[in-house]
């Protein structure tokens, strides 16, 4: 029963969604919208599940004083604080100027931007370490990367040639390769979806 019911749900709803795509009738459209509504509702409840897991794991780390338990304490404190700030009476938390939005704009946004800016440093060190012209193909890859990067650099009379080359690389070989990727990935997605619908792929359900 523990596995039969989820499998029946997955197969039933999956096949309905497949059939629904080809049947334009109003009744199918209504059922489809109903399923969409329920998916959103389930997603919201799943967020509560995540909150529960986060709290439980971090509280356990604090209680057992495992290495790094201070970070867990900060994580819990931050979560509780932001939750409480969102409920300050007299303020609409999502409106500009509210305490919640001030914390979002002046703490959260700079922290996220800082993390993202690490990429600039990391790409330089990864490029230095890994981009070696070991083989002919690697050399072609390297030269293409350099031509694309030079799009932004003013090269005087060579700028026009470089722009043309960069545009050619993006719109011809890059597009052809990406299209092949998308087709392969699309077929992979179709195959995996078919496996899930037919019950061949069941790892997400675990085993008894």
């Amino acid at each position: 029963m523990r596995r039969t019911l989820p499998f029946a749900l997955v197969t039933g709803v999956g096949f309905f969604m497949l059939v629904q795509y080809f049947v334009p009738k109003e009744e199918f459209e209504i059922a489809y919208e109903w399923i969409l509504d329920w998916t959103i509702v389930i997603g919201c409840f799943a967020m509560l599940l995540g909150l529960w897991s986060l709290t439980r794991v971090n509280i356990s780390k604090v209680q057992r004083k495992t290495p790094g338990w201070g970070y867990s304490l900060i994580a819990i404190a931050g979560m509780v604080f932001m939750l409480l700030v969102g409920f300050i009476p007299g303020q609409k938390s999502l409106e500009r100027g509210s305490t919640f939005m001030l914390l979002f704009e002046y703490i959260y946004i700079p922290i996220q931007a800082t993390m993202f800016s690490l990429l600039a440093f990391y790409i330089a060190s990864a490029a230095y370490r890994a981009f070696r012209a070991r083989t002919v193909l690697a050399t072609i890859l390297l030269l293409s990367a350099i031509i694309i990067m030079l799009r932004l650099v003013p090269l005087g009379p060579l700028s026009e040639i470089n722009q043309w080359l960069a545009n050619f690389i993006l719109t011809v070989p890059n597009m052809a390769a990406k299209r092949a990727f998308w087709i392969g990935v699309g077929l992979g997605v179709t195959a995996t979806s078919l496996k899930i619908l037919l019950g061949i792929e069941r790892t997400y359900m675990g085993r008894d």
Partner: protein
Amino acid sequence: MNFYERMMNLDRRWIYLVIGLVVVITAIFPFDVPLYVTPEVRSIYDYIESLNPGDVLMIGVDYAPEVMAELHPMTYAISRQCFKKDVKLLLCCLHQNGPGMVEQVISQVSKEYNKINGVDYVYLGYKPYPGITILAMGQNFRIPFPEDYYGTPLDSLPMMRGLTNFDNVKAIINISGGSGTELWINFANGRYNAKLAIGVTGVMTSDYYPFLQSGQIFGLIGGMKGASEYEYLAEKDGYISRAKNQLSAYKTMPIQTTSHLVVILFIVLGNIGFFMSKKKKSRI
């Protein structure tokens, strides 16, 4: 360890230091970078130019603060162009960290042009599960968004009269820093045949050329460079102003230029080290 081997095993912190210095120095001493406007950016600009006052353009803003440096300028430039032309905006957000981004743009730009919420623009807000939300909006905006971001029922907003789904908007521009773009292409364009253009981060740009070539999207703004191209066009026609500090992507072009040059230099140095070490080893 000879010089070339030491060069190849350079501590990464030296690399971080050089990058940091180059960025800071260029920020302090900027210079103008000549721009070449690509056809894929121009097509979006020209399309919005062809819209009439009262037309509705939908903007799907699906990014979080970490990519705002690349994508915020696009959102600002497009919003300013639309409001100057009295084109109405319908905005939504499908990224959980994005609602504040949209609120920032729309509250600032609407004040600049004296635009009224509910009459000149509607901000639908955020909903999770972007694929489901896009599919639902294709049927009726009111299914996932019965109210707007500020809690007002959509049916009581004057602008929403006659706006049911994607059929009633002139085009959709999705500005995204993640996989939301594929969902807009697959569902909004693929299922509902909505006219779609996209703005994405630099690293994602090359992925979407196949969709541009096949006609699934009619324009593509790629990263900071694409945003600066758009700002360049908007400034030429007076939609944004350098004096009011509204060219945020364009002024980062010198930093991008110098940092790219430094990365190329590192790659060249690394390869010199590689080949010279190889040569030395083969001699031994």
